[in-house]
């Protein structure tokens, strides 16, 4: 249960929740607080219940930029968390290769980060976040820097990975269509100080494909989220 100001939200095991809000409203801060990476400077963040148990260790984080270490190979980047946790064994290596295969990069295990394109790098970062089989995946605008087509490919990849691994995902974005396409639930944040002003349950079946972007349903969700953000009121 994540409490931010007046709003409570129950994060279901295995669900994907998108945090949608304007720039500077505190999405990143919230995510970092969930991960225990930042202490709440004002307000309080409480985490309890079995769904997100011991968040300090049991999560994977994907940043807006890939943050790959340039002096390590792709494989060693993926294995980095295991090395830190002193769990760098054969099983870890096997799992790393599995994950790289899952994202279609098994051929690049020995490559260096600078030889990869932006989308490929972000896929490596995704593998790295998943290597220790976290029950919670925290993603902070992971695809913000990618072009729209690569982004759509990554969307399907993420949904696929989530299906395979069963991970719970918190996904920060400021793209309405991204939020609608990916999420079970969208939390819409207001401008600073970020209050949750809308909570949208997306009732569209998985697996989704990009055709649904043009469906009436999708459109209605987009409109509701946009209205929540105040995009539509500016230009009545």
């Amino acid at each position, binding site marked *: 249960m994540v409490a931010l100001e007046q709003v409570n939200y129950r994060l279901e095991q295995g669900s994907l929740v998108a945090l949608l809000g304007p720039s500077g409203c505190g999405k990143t801060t919230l995510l970092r607080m969930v991960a225990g990476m930042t202490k709440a400077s004002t307000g309080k963040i409480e985490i309890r219940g079995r769904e997100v148990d011991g968040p300090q260790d049991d999560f994977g984080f994907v*940043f807006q930029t890939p943050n790959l270490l340039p002096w390590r190979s792709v494989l060693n980047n993926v294995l980095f968390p295991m090395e830190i946790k002193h769990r760098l064994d054969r099983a870890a290596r096997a799992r790393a290769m599995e994950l790289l295969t899952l994202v279609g990069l098994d051929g690049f295990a020995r490559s260096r980060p600078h030889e990869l394109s932006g989308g490929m790098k972000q896929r490596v970062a995704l593998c790295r976040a998943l290597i220790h089989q976290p029950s919670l995946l925290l993603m902070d605008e992971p695809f913000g820097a990618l072009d729209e087509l690569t982004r759509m490919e990554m969307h399907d990849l993420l949904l696929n990975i989530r299906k395979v691994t069963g991970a719970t995902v918190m996904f920060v974005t400021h793209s309405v269509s991204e939020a609608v396409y990916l999420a079970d639930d969208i939390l819409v944040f207001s401008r600073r100080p970020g209050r949750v002003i809308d909570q949208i349950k997306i009732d569209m079946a998985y697996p989704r494909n990009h055709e649904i972007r043009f469906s009436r349903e999708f459109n209605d969700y987009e409109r509701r989220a946009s209205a929540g953000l105040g995009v539509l009121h500016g230009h009545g």
Partner: protein
Amino acid sequence: MDKITRIVYPLVGIVGLIAVWHFYVVWFNVPMAVLPKPLAVWDAIVKNWPLLLDEGKVTLMESVYGFLLAFAFGVPLAVAISSSRVLNLMFYPLLIATQSLPKVALAPLLLIWLGTGIESKLAIAWLVAFFPIVVDTATGLRGTPAEFLDLATSVRANGWQTFWKIRFPAALPFVISGSKVAITLAVIGAVIGEFIGSNEGLGNLLLVANSQVNTALAFAALFGLAVLGMALYAAVAGVELALKPWFGDMRHG
């Protein structure tokens, strides 16, 4: 083709310089005691080839060991300074102060402390060379990209791990860029050491030649020092080049 220009142009530069030097001596009738003709220096080099080589080896060793010492002390000092604001505030001004002291003035002290053996030469080479290593390494260590540190936090790396697996490798390009400056300074340091107290090395040869007003030989020794400096610089630059793919997309080269 490119390899050729990379060799031809520097040669053109050197030949041009030598030509200017030659005609300066000829036209202005410069006495030999002041500036010998390039040809005279060349003769001295040819005649004293084995001597230059032997003395050069000594200076080379002093420079390399002095540089390694500077490296071995400079890097940990940079680590200390960059990881503790207190140490930084305490020692940085002192560091800068030592930099503006002429090493020639400090050398006698070192000689008296360390004797006339290799130790004093190493100490001087060290003293001269370690500043750029400390400054650049500290800059690199302090400048670890925030994203990398975020990554470290996200995987719960402790301070030790963060240092060895993130901060230090990220600072390596800076360490090398400091080393490029340090290596030429190490040569100067070794020569100063030889000036102050030594019976061998190119610096000593320079003094001996000077005291006998044998300017041709003195310039031959200077030539040896220049070649030595360039070779060592090239070696470090080579290391840098070799490491480049390692640091592919990092900002600093």
